[in-house]
């Protein structure tokens, strides 16, 4: 084993051009794919933080007693997809509304009496993402006799969830595409490298080398290439990310979202992916050039 590693390192040194090209190719592809992944990671963060805001107001009929309230709360909480329900009295609600409307709150000063009813604020489970589900929850709540009306989500939340689901779909499809492409390009690069060494392979075979003897150094080199390429790619991404995020902080100081880099575990995962891709490339190429 140690022998093969030595062989491999020697091989890398004497063919530094070929292997350099492979490492750079892998690094760039890892950079691209993980840049894309990072982008979607952050978009997803945003979606999650917005989804938390998907709430529903259940306005109650007038003159409901405590018992009925308690009963209703229990029933509402029993509906799947609803994670919480908080009672908000009409006075609370008016105060809240005034706060919300800020500049427009003067409008409410003209009111003679509080026109708002008592209400429950319902929190929708984050797993329920599409507006159809939310709609169906709303209708199920509406049928309770004590319920006057259900108002849910600002219209745009529904729209955005849809759009962001599309984002995610597109992102997922593209990620798959990118990954496939990466495997393919890396495999091709390694194939080209092996192609220019095919005579060498042939000579080794005729000199009596077993298949494992021929292949082992290539796999070791491939794994090293994958590791080095992956690390360079992630490092490059991190540098690019630092630039972007620092420039973001300048232009978007008022913006509440904060973007983040991959956690360490995912970074390591990407490097492993990169190693795996290089290994796969070796595997396919060696199969091609060592048929007999």
């Amino acid at each position, binding site marked *: 084993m140690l022998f093969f590693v030595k062989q491999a390192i020697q*091989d890398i040194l004497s063919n530094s051009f070929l292997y350099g090209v492979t490492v750079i190719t892998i690094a760039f592809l890892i950079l691209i794919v993980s840049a894309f992944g990072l982008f979607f990671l952050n978009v997803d963060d945003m979606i999650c933080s917005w989804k938390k805001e998907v709430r529903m107001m259940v306005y109650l009929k007038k003159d409901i007693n405590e018992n009925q309230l308690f009963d209703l709360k229990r029933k509402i909480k029993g509906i799947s997809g609803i994670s919480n329900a908080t009672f908000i009295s009409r006075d609370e609600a008016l105060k809240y509304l005034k706060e919300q409307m800020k500049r427009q709150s003067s409008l409410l000063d003209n009111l003679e009496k509080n026109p708002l009813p008592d209400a429950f604020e319902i929190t929708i489970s984050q797993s329920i993402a599409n507006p159809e589900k939310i709609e169906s929850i709303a209708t199920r709540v509406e049928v309770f006799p004590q319920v006057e009306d259900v108002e849910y989500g600002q219209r745009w939340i529904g729209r955005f969830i849809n759009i962001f689901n599309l984002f995610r779909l597109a992102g997922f499809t593209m990620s798959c595409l990118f990954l496939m492409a990466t495997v393919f390009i890396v495999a091709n690069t390694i194939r080209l490298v092996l192609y220019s060494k095919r005579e060498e392979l042939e000579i*080794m075979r*005729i*000199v*009596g*080398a*077993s298949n494992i003897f021929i292949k082992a150094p290539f796999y070791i080199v491939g794994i090293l290439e994958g590791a080095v390429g992956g690390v360079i790619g992630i490092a490059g991404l991190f540098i690019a990310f630092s630039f972007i995020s620092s420039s973001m902080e300048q232009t978007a100081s008022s913006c509440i979202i904060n973007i983040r880099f991959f956690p360490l575990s995912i970074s390591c995962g990407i490097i492993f992916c990169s190693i795996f891709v290089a290994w796969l490339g070796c595997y396919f190429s060696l199969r091609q050039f060592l048929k007999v």
Partner: protein
Amino acid sequence: MIDKNAIIRVFHVHKRYGSKNALIDVTFDVAKNEFLFISGPNGAGKSSLLKLLYLAEGVSEGEILIDGINLSRISRKRIPLLRRKIGVIFQDFKLIPTKTVFENVALVLEVAGNKKHTIQKKVKRLLRAGGMEEKLDSYPAGLSSGEQQRVAFARAVAGDPKIILADEPTGSLDDESAGIILDILKKLHVLGTTVIIATHNKELIHTISARTIYLEKGRLKQDIPRTSKIISL
């Protein structure tokens, strides 16, 4: 026809490349520890025949047995083992351009799983015998043709093969070097190695009294035993 002493048996072998017949119905046996010339003009099929023997190509028809193993039926795992019994000097040397002279020769020994120490000693000894001790760390591109051929020779004999197949082993060598190489081959033969030399060089054939197979246009035309030399060539 069954000769228990035969290490190589070539039995009605045909070799076709597309429509080209490189070998047509060639049959002969090589005894253990025989010294054999394969002779014939350019394109006669000498190299093609050797290629079949070192398993670089498969026969189109017929059977070849080496050391009792039928090459058409050998399992893929055993091919490397068989190849290690055969040392080949290629007509075009086939040195690995990315390895040094030392590494090229050492490869054969590494492949067979020898110890590093043994390899060092043996390779150096062999290259010294070929007058290549100064070129240990050169790459093949930095050698003259004659020097490359000597490295190819060292590689062929490094693994102590039972059989040595030499395709025009002195083609690029001056008379002195050729003499040295031939002497070594003769010594190995005395020590028990089977030596097969393919050459169109009649002079070379005349310097050594040995059995000679004469190919022409892919056919085995003459099989001249050791005694009756010079007569028909």
